């Protein structure tokens, strides 16, 4: 039983972590919100003044903002579709009795450990480059014109790169969930005459539903903040074709030094992420009670 003494000690032990995270959350967050109401440009220091909602007005009426929202959603949904569908199929395949299962799994997981700048540059140059890339060679060898991936279909190309990075994560989590499935239940259903399709629909799919939800929510949190892949491949272009919200705020504040406008964008990004976070927190909280 916990004593009063140990309770006091426990509180003391938790304090540093709580204080640090509280500071990390409240101080910059408060500053971002405060800046978002200011006319604040780093090129004109000392001229900060209160402007109320002007930054929000300009940000939300800027066509590039709506482009950024559309690009953010396209990127998130595109990658989710590929990684979740691919992840389920791949997890089911890797869960079958196969030779060298361990090694195959290691190969599949590998891209997750490649740093974002490396994977983006490898794909951009060695595969998607319209002159010397491997895809260009393949196209030429079957008599097609090489396709300029990042020039002609920039968003689709980035979706492909990001999906390659995150497919392992989805596969690994779904595979872990599959392996915790009670095999006796499957065997019993098989004896009762359930075919593979029925077994999947009535036993495997419900079992995977929870893990899939977790994958979708966690991926969404990460995908909303995709940055490095865009920076090293397209710089948000051509035009604003691949500028997502994160990248837009980066260009406004750190490249154009418009702190006020960038901060307003940051607040919008926080609100978007929070909508997803609420659902994720509920899922994880439920698990904590169990």
């Amino acid at each position, binding site marked *: 039983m916990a004593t009063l003494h140990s309770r006091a000690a426990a509180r003391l032990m938790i304090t540093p972590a709580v204080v640090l995270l509280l500071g990390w959350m409240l101080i*910059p967050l408060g500053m971002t919100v405060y800046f978002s109401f200011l006319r604040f440009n780093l090129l004109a220091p000392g001229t900060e003044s209160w402007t109320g909602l002007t930054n929000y007005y300009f940000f939300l009426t800027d066509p590039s903002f709506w482009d950024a929202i559309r690009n953010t959603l396209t990127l998130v949904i595109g990658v989710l579709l590929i990684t979740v569908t691919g992840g389920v199929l791949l997890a089911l395949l890797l869960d079958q009795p196969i030779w060298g299962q361990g090694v195959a799994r290691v190969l599949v997981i590998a891209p997750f450990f*490649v740093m974002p700048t490396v994977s983006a540059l490898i794909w951009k140059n060695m595969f998607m480059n319209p002159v010397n890339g491997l895809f260009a060679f393949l196209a030429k060898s079957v008599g097609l014109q090489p396709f300029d991936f990042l020039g002609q279909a920039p968003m689709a190309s980035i979706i492909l790169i990001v999906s390659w990075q995150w497919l392992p994560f989805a596969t690994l989590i779904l595979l872990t969930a599959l392996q915790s499935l009670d095999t006796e239940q499957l065997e019993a259903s098989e004896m009762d005459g359930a075919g593979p399709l029925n077994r999947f629909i009535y036993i495997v799919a419900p079992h995977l539903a929870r893990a899939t939800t977790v994958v979708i929510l966690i991926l969404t949190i990460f995908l909303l903040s995709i940055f*490095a892949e865009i920076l090293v491949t397209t710089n948000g272009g051509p035009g604003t074709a691949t500028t997502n919200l994160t990248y837009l705020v980066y260009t406004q504040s750190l490249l154009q030094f418009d702190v006020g406008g960038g901060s307003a964008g940051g607040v919008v990004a926080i609100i978007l992420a929070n909508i997803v976070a609420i659902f994720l927190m509920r899922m994880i909280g439920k698990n904590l009670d169990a």
Partner: protein
Amino acid sequence: MARAVSTRRKATFTVAAWAIALAIFFPILWTFLTSFKTEGDAIASPPMFVFFDWNLSAYEAVNQRTNYLKHFWNSVVISFGSTILGLVIAVPAAWAMAFVPAKQTKNVLMWMLSTKMLPPVGVVIPIFLIFRNTGLLDTRTGLVIVLMLINLPIIVWMLFTYFREIPGEILEAARMDGADLRSELLYVLTPMAMPGIASTLLLNVILAWNEAFWTLNLTAAKAAPLTAFIASFSSPEGLFFAKLSAASTMAIAPILVLGWFSQKQLVRGLTFGAVK
């Protein structure tokens, strides 16, 4: 009992799974192969797979023309520094929450998790300005602090899920035998908690090593880790495939090896215990 599986069925699945696995792994393999080519061989058409003149000229060029070792060392310092600092802060916190749970424990844990949901772009401007004014911009210290803070929730959560699995009765028995808090920590808990702490260290070093928002935005030449160093290849340097491949191979190889050891922990750590 394992179900009897026909060899033919097993062979079919094996071929399919291996074909997909190799396709997914191929970009990494291709990078590895290309790093041993000359620039000429790297863009040869048709592409050369293994029958080329293997040599280390690209590695030599990267090491001569750039300060590769400096960036590598920056990555090591930043990823290990931030993770170890995080562990120092998180171990007591997770220990307390796992063994002396209070009414608030669940709320504190959930709140910590919620800080992880904060998009970095929502706080980058203030952090950038604070760092600029305090001279932390482009320093390893600055990045150690930021990466420690962004990974702290994951570190606390992972440790918590590991510590929770240690039976509390053992601690009570130790207490009955007259162990005080210090010896309880040192002789009872630490040996049992070591595997969990090691896994947490491993996964968080990997996450910090690959972190590419803060490292790109808060560093320039001096403190840039490998993520930022590789970004400098974006153009037109990236067109030198062999050099790009050599730099990339050196940047990802150590972490790929660590990563393969941490597969299981990866799931636990990144789903906050929701999938085990």
